[in-house]
């Protein structure tokens, strides 16, 4: 049977918008006809502390109400987390990792996982999202997700940003679009 459920785990630090990123991605997938869920791992997001969030989508109604233990892909909003936690924990074989980093993807090695990098910090700063010291990178990295994974369109992500982002909607859409353009898919 073809597996239709797709699960994503987001890693970030409190304040970067990991939980919102999961919600925007869910909203975008919903716009393309999927049933969706997005939720934080524990719900006590303190600024700067490592946080995780989940997104689950399926062509069929989703009954599962558990956390995600074996994600199909992983999104890392803050590269400093790579030294702190095992972001690849439970990643399915052949899964994808999208990392906010100025380094090339080839500089990372996570077993058989396919790595994509995007300098979401630079893009966020350029579009005036957050501050230079605390840029909000969640919308930029979703643009990269769209290109890298290919199961949610950039147009749907832009629409979802319009719905779920409270301020600077246009700048956020542009950041997502720019990240989408510069990320190389397969």
């Amino acid at each position, binding site marked *: 049977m073809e597996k239709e459920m797709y699960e994503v785990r987001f890693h970030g630090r409190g304040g970067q918008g990991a939980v919102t990123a*999961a*919600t925007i991605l*869910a*909203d975008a997938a*919903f716009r393309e006809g999927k*049933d*969706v*869920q*997005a*939720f*934080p791992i*524990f*719900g*006590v997001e303190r600024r700067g502390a490592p946080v995780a969030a989940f997104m689950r989508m399926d062509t069929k109604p989703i*009954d*599962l*109400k*558990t*956390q995600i*233990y074996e994600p199909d892909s992983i999104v890392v909003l803050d590269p400093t987390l790579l030294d702190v936690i095992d972001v690849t924990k439970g990643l399915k074989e052949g899964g994808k990792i999208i990392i906010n980093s100025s380094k090339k993807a080839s500089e990372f090695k996570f077993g058989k996982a396919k790595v994509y990098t995007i300098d979401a910090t630079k893009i966020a700063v350029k579009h005036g999202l957050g501050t230079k010291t605390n840029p909000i990178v969640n919308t930029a990295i979703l643009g990269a997700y769209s290109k890298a994974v290919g199961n949610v369109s950039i147009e749907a992500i832009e629409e979802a940003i319009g*719905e779920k982002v409270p301020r600077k909607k246009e700048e956020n859409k542009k950041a997502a679009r720019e990240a989408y353009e510069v990320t190389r898919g397969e």
Partner: protein
Amino acid sequence: MVKKVIYGNHAVSYGARDARAEVIAAYPITPQTQVVELLSEFCASGELKAKFIKVESEHSAMAACVGASAAGARAFTATSSQGLALMHEMLHWASNARHPIVMANINRAMGPPWNIWTDQNDSISQRDTGWLQFYCSTNQEVYDTTLMTFKICENDKVLLPGMLVLDAFVLSHTSEVVDMPLQEEIDEFLPPYRAKYKLDLDDPRAFGGLMFPDWYYELKYKQHTSMEEALDVIEKVGKEFGDRFGRYYGLVEEYRIEEAEIVLIVSGTIAQTSKEAVDILRKEGMKIGLVRMRTFRPFPKEKIRKIASKVNKMIVIDRNISFGSEGAFFTETKACLYNEKDRPMIFGVIIGLGGRDVTVEDIMKIAKKGKEGKFKVNEINWWGVKL
């Protein structure tokens, strides 16, 4: 009709908005805060024409709702855990005075130690306050149940307050798709509340006075029979809701119980996850089904008896514990079957307190162990305890 991806908490807020609540009094507590934040925005923008009363505690929140309901208004509040516990005195008041107040309670564990995650000990502890209790398992059901609870509670045969319950984080902070009907359609389903008896300067009445032993007892009898009558009202309102909006609700949800030899009795989001387990086990050939308990008060005794008459084993999975006894749903399930001739074997399992995740694998293992009759019968079974 609007279809949106929203938090469970906001499904409550939209539900209260679309039910046209007239007075909202609430005090914030994690994980309920978003419910009240959005409602206060609705009130500030005029989108909801309700009086929003800020209060200094949950006890006062319920007191304000009691006052509002006594004046004939449709009153709403939301709370969680310690907040619900602090309301306890006024919960009795609301029910004893027959005020059809509606409240959302986000199921959160009781401290200490502090824990903001889900279990049912907060709401189960309010079992005897005379409130109807509905346990939800999706954000859609949260929204729908908010609307239905007003209609059920305001019914002349019921006139009791009602609590809808949703799991902390697993629903409250989880975004899911929620389908909200048009306001005109909701207004037809849920017309304005017209209180039969209310505080009225032109028609003065006394409320909450002293009642001697010669009649107090009869009022308690009436309160109880109204609760029993609610069983029928809940089913009728659930059917009408389904006829209008396409989503049907009853006292319980039966899932794949046809020809089942064993059934799981579960409530809240664990029940939703358990459906996956049932699907897998059915594929493996196990004759298993699931009964999702939507209603805890009034307890759907007849439903349980009917289901029990057809199966060999029942496993009651409780995300709550009455210390020194057992899980609340387990107690109730057994109690209503005691005088039945053909009773199935019943096991009680405690799981997931304080928000510990309950997985499909957990449920499958529980089902298999139950089928093999390997659980203790006269004691509770703690699932996954690390001691």
